[in-house]
């Protein structure tokens, strides 16, 4: 099914059982794991309404978690106090589409927080407020009763606090193995290295996976919806601090560090979060590199298998894959460190390039 006015009008009219006029169809430019479409429509003379359609790219998603899992998570988390967009329905009817998708309510807001990345000191307080807002949201995520919501029926779930980290590492290797088209001995070497250094988790909880600027929706300074649950799992809360994308910024005032990851962790703990050490966070940062190697290899495999693969996957399957190997090799003492500026360079897009 093409997401276009001509095809969406009869579809939504059928689904909502009332004539619908499609006013706007926009494909979201950010994100490469899945397609996100913003649909604006009107029922008769009613005010404009907004929906979000999500589906996998034609060549498949970069990420390993299936679209059905994402829909399930949104539906179940809608029953908790975690801010998420309401999941509305799943569509796989071949009469309408050859590629399944799901629909969720659109939440007004933006992934961008104006001035958050402005280095001027006058925005330091804004950065700290946003960091605290995110810490409060993470504490809510980590307090979710995942057993009651049956999240363990679809998510990788750690058996206990002591084997939690090793279990997660094994799960990443298993994901890689499930789509492996090229043997990467570094994957096994790094997994073994990590398991030999695995920390004990303070508790087992729902972890979101990817966090920080670009992953959540804000209205002014309020986090109104948490997005991007593709890497969600049930494990060590420390894992959620390993990929913060600037939401645990270091703020120095008059030579004194007034905010940092340590401050953020203390604040998170004060609002009901679990005990999390910086050492455990560092461990999970290396696990993230292992996961980056797994999903970038999958992206490369998609490019090999399909002429329809998006160009972003070709980049992910080449440079990002190499970067993940480099990080892991450096961690194990097998390579020099990447240049300090390299990670920022990798994250620069034509949209945010100065």
């Amino acid at each position, binding site marked *: 099914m093409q997401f276009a006015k001509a095809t969406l009008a009869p579809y939504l009219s059928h689904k909502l059982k009332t004539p619908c006029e499609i006013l706007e169809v926009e*494909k979201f*430019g950010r994100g*490469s794991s899945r397609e996100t479409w913003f649909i604006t429509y009107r029922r008769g003379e009613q005010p404009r309404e907004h929906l979000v359609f999500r589906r996998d790219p034609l060549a498949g998603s970069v990420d390993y978690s299936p679209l059905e899992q994402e829909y399930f998570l949104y539906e179940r988390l809608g029953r908790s106090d975690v801010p998420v967009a309401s999941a509305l329905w799943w569509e796989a009817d071949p009469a309408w589409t050859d590629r399944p998708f799901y629909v969720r309510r659109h939440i007004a807001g933006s992934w961008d927080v104006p001035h958050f990345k402005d280095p001027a000191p006058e925005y330091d307080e804004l950065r700290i407020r946003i960091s605290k807002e995110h810490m409060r949201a993470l504490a809510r995520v980590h307090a979710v009763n995942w057993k009651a919501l049956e999240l363990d029926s679809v998510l990788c779930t750690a058996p206990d606090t002591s084997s939690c980290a090793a279990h997660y590492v094994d799960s990443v290797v298993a994901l890689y193995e499930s789509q492996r*088209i*090229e*043997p*990467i*001995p*570094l994957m*096994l*070497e790094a997994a*073994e290295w990590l398991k030999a250094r695995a920390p004990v988790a303070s508790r087992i909880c729902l972890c979101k996976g990817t966090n920080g600027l670009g992953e959540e929706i804000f209205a002014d300074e309020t986090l109104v919806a948490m997005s991007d649950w593709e890497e969600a799992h049930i494990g060590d809360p420390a894992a959620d601090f390993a990929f913060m994308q600037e939401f645990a910024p270091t703020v120095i005032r008059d030579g004194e560090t007034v905010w940092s990851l340590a401050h953020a962790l203390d604040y998170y703990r004060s609002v009901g979060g679990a005990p999390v050490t910086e050492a455990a966070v560092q461990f999970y940062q290396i696990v993230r590199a292992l996961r980056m190697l797994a999903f970038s290899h999958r992206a*490369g*495999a998609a*490019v*090999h298998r399909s*002429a*329809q*693969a*998006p*160009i*972003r*996957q*070709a*980049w992910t*399957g*080449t*440079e990002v*894959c*190499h970067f993940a*190997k*480099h990080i892991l*090799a450096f961690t*194990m003492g*097998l*390579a020099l460190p990447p*240049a300090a500026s*390299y990670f920022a*360079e*990798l994250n*620069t*897009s*034509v*949209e945010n*390039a100065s």
Partner: protein
Amino acid sequence: MIYPTANDVLRCIDQTLAESADADLPAMARKSALASCRHLVRHVELRLRLERGLLQEDAERLAALLPGVADYLADSGSEGPAQATAIRQQLSRPAPASDDGSDDLEPLRAHVLALREALYQALALLQKLDASRRESATYQALREGIRGYIREELQQEDLLIHDAFVGQGPRR
């Protein structure tokens, strides 16, 4: 890095260029896609220039490393002897001719993949051996040899990546 191949990447670039001609594509999406294409064109150029030599070197390193791995596994009990036999069979297969004048890298690629798969399976088995074996100097030397291979493979791969991407502007 064997996959995606240079041809895979070229096919992806071609598809992207065709899609970029769509007048309805938002300007930022087109700009982003074309930025990625430029990096990947440079990457393909490096692949065309360097990949055959790098694959040959990779095959030579694996051919030097694997006999020692097979010897060790042959004496390690459990699945080791079967694994050793598989490695030796793989090593006995002739490498594709290096000067056949063909542009087709597929036979060489398949040869390296098979050798590297043998190493991968051997490493998985070595990691499962019990602690007493793992503490021996022979075992440690073998593992150090594998780590050396990993280090060199990464350095090789960097030749196909660094100049194509680093310092060349936004990737997407």
